[in-house]
């Protein structure tokens, strides 16, 4: 009975402890609580526990600093999904920057900023390069020698494209003929397309 209790206690303590516990620590702990324990007994109990958990989902593992319970190694990959978060989404700013590089390459950051009317954050350029979709292919020889960006083969691979000509055609910018009123100017590309489609 005494032994049964020592075993239960060691088991519980190992599961509760935040750090691995050594044979010496466990023995001291038992002695402090008035239990008749020796290192030999503790070692025997640990061996027994290791055998008990052999085929279980968690196992008693001895590592440098002592013993701890941990999940079975083969399960790691599956269990990982407990912490797997949904992939984040890219911002509209990033997507537009990428689109401009794809459709207007080679292009400088200044060009992108001019078209988008806002400054492009370094973080966006860094993200696109880390993702391997965009690279610097040279400099434009103007004052400041701005870097020229282009898309990569990885970009084509990701979007399953053979080459850039396979990028989807984009709606023509709204026409600005002389007799179109001020409204036509302000319509977005999308509505412009609809208009041209509905026109006979």
């Amino acid at each position: 009975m005494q032994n049964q209790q020592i075993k239960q206690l060691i088991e519980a303590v190992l599961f509760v402890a935040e750090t691995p516990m050594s044979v010496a620590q466990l023995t001291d702990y038992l002695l402090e609580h008035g239990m008749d324990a020796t290192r030999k007994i503790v070692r025997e109990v640990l061996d027994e526990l290791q055998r008990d958990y052999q085929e279980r989902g968690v196992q008693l593992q001895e590592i440098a600093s002592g013993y701890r319970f941990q999940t079975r190694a083969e399960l790691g990959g599956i269990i990982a999904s407990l912490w797997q978060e949904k992939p984040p989404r890219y911002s509209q700013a990033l997507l537009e920057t990428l689109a401009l590089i794809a459709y207007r390459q080679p292009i400088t950051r200044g060009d992108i900023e001019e078209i988008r009317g806002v400054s492009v954050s370094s973080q966006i350029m860094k993200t696109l390069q880390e993702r391997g979709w965009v690279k610097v292919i040279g400099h434009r020889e103007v004052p400041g020698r701005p870097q020229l960006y282009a898309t990569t083969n990885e970009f084509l691979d990701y979007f399953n494209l053979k080459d850039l000509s396979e990028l989807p055609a984009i709606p023509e910018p709204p026409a600005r003929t002389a007799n179109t009123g001020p409204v036509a100017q302000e319509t977005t590309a999308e509505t412009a397309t609809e208009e041209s489609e509905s026109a006979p």
Partner: protein
Amino acid sequence: MAESTTSPQQQSLPLGFVRGEPVIDKPEDLYIPPDALELILESFSGPMDLLLYLIRRQKLDIVDLPILPITKQYMEYVEMMKELKLELAADYLVMAAMLAEIKSRMLLPRPPAEEDEEADPRAELVRRLQEYEAIRTGAGYLDDMPQTERDLFVVHADTDAKDFVKQQLPDVALAELAVAFSHAMAQAELQHHHQIHRERLSTRARMSRIIDLLQTHQRLRFAQLFEPSEGKQGVVVSFLAILELVKEALVDVTQVDAFSEIHISTREQVYAESTD
């Protein structure tokens, strides 16, 4: 004072509790040191607790509450509390007033015409005492339940699983890219009020390729940039790309003599040579 730290254990017949500890039997006896008295008085969780304590101490029946002696004893305690300037007094005074009211109603002669149902003036108090006693029992049950962090601990095993967690990268659909592009262009249209021409993609792509080639070959022969297998259209695209690159000041085109070989080099290259 030291007593207050000893661990509580429920007695079979509790009379009253000081923070869960059974209270000594005769608090009104004068030999109790003032400190202890204060401790006891402070420990009642309210007037109901005190009242219940007084009833239980004298083994009285709640249902047939002898209101006179109880009121008297209760008032003695309240007086003690006042003397000790315990803050609890207000709630205890409300109870004192209630007891006094019940007492006076009991002293009044009952009108004979009253129905049988006419309530005993004590009925409401008795009901409250019974309910309070039930709740005290419930509180005791709760305290006796195995509690997390006191009697049991949630356990966890270590796991290397977190090493397997991959940082997920956002997905982008091709259509999103086209939409983003047309959105950016529409914005530009609104902002700049100038016409933006649709460019031949292949020209743009070819421009990238030429610059890419120039990264590895410092100079290229003009003819190297044309791939006969691409046909007439390919030649035109390459030519347009070169013109565009010159226009954008990205490359230099040099020809030593008329009809001699034309060379394409990056501006950078020219710059580097001239400064050497």
